[in-house]
């Protein structure tokens, strides 16, 4: 069994429990043990880099150092925002002499930058897809709008995704599980991210455009790979719908939940009951169409 470092981040412990559940489920399927970094801390998120640049490098660095001390050269970081902070921190330490000397003093640990953060899409591509083909139990006969948001594709020096303006990585995964990935125009637009609490009105406006475009092109669900995108599109749905002529009910599904369904895992074990926007109708439709197949 392969073991890799796992940095769930604060969201997967709280608001994004379904992401953690479904990710653990597909990791078990792929025979990969996700070893949680011992005593990890918050990456600092937008708050740290908005207010204090040193903190923004140091907080993620402590986690990188923990991973190194545990002997991991790969850390799965399912949250795109945490990924961005960890990867940026590693980038700064490796490329900037100033941080290379300063950071070990701050975190009171050695750090070389040998542990490489990877996104959930990297993880799926590397560990899951190869085993998927022979184990598919459901063909997910529905239309999906794959949503990347900002931090999976930008900035360029941290992203592993090609075709930044029109990435196709998630689309390929959707097609592998029998779904249809629609071509749409808002897959790399921003959802409003960290302004969720303070300027919920902005989240409403930005997410409304995203949901509206997916809806108008016939999507049955939006697939995401980031808990920030998910909570804005899902939890903030009432605020979003204020900006739309008619209420939008598109469910927001994690890519890991999608894979879980394709592998025949029970929706409840994938956390489908934890969504704010009901996934019932979508699951029902899937089930019906799967039966028809």
């Amino acid at each position: 069994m392969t073991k890799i470092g796992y940095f769930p981040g604060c969201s997967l412990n709280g608001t994004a429990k379904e992401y953690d559940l479904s990710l653990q489920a597909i990791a078990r399927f792929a025979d990969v043990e996700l070893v949680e970094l011992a005593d990890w801390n918050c990456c600092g998120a937008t708050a740290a880099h908005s207010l204090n640049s040193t903190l923004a490098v140091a907080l993620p660095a402590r986690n990188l150092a923990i991973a190194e001390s545990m002997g991991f050269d790969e850390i799965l970081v399912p949250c795109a925002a945490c990924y961005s902070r960890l990867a940026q921190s590693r980038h700064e330490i490796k490329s900037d002499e100033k941080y290379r000397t300063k950071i070990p003093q701050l975190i009171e640990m050695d750090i070389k930058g040998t542990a490489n953060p990877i996104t959930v899409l990297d993880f799926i591509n590397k560990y899951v897809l190869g085993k998927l083909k022979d184990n598919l139990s459901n063909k997910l006969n529905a239309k999906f709008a794959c949503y990347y948001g900002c931090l999976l594709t930008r900035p360029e020096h941290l992203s592993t995704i090609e075709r930044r303006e029109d990435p196709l990585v998630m689309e390929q995964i959707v097609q592998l599980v029998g779904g249809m990935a629609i071509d749409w125009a808002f897959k790399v637009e921003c959802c409003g991210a960290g302004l969720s609490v303070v300027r919920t009105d902005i989240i409403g406006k930005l997410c409304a455009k995203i949901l509206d475009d997916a809806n108008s092109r016939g999507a049955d669900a939006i697939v995401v790979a980031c808990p920030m995108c998910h909570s804005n599109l899902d939890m903030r749905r009432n605020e979003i719908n204020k900006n739309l002529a008619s209420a939008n009910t598109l469910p927001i599904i994690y890519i890991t939940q999608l894979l879980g369904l394709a592998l025949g895992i029970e929706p409840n074990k994938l956390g489908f009951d934890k969504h704010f926007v009901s996934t019932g109708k979508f699951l029902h439709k899937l089930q019906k169409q799967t039966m028809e197949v």
Partner: protein
Amino acid sequence: METKSKIEPLAQPLKEKILNEINEQVMKCYQCGKCAAGCPLSGEMDYTPNQILRLLQIGDTSCDDEVLRSYGIWLCLTCDTCHSRCPQEVDFPHIMDFLRSESIKRRKVHPKAKEIIAFHRSFLECIEKTGRLHEVGLIASYKLKTFNLLQDVDLAPKMFAKGKLEIFPHRIKGKEAIARIFEKAIKEADND
């Protein structure tokens, strides 16, 4: 009345500071406006990204002052759309981070941005104390700072019911180490 201010006089234009400290050249911007055209929030900003860069390019005290007092710098989501499409490869989000910390340091924060900063501060305080984010603690602290007492009251019960809220924070074992990181990082920022 201001007596002993920590605010330093503008010894050098911000653009020079930006060049020296974070190695970004605001002079590269040729005002094509592609950043503003792609920015999800330029419509909400008092100054769009290219306008901020223009003010920085002029480099006199009053323009620098306008930048540091602007609301726009606090709205930037660091989505990197501007940077990824900029023909001149100006890393504007990087510059925005610098401007925000400079704005706080020189006490020029836009009044409307105080809530955003309060949120960031509550967030960091939470991490400083426990090592991780604790939503209940964060929201409580933010509400106390801003008196937005009704913020998101409708969400909390639902989140709780779905098992997405913990009443008590998880305190990591290394929380003293985290506190020391904060202490050193803040001291360093003050010395700049």
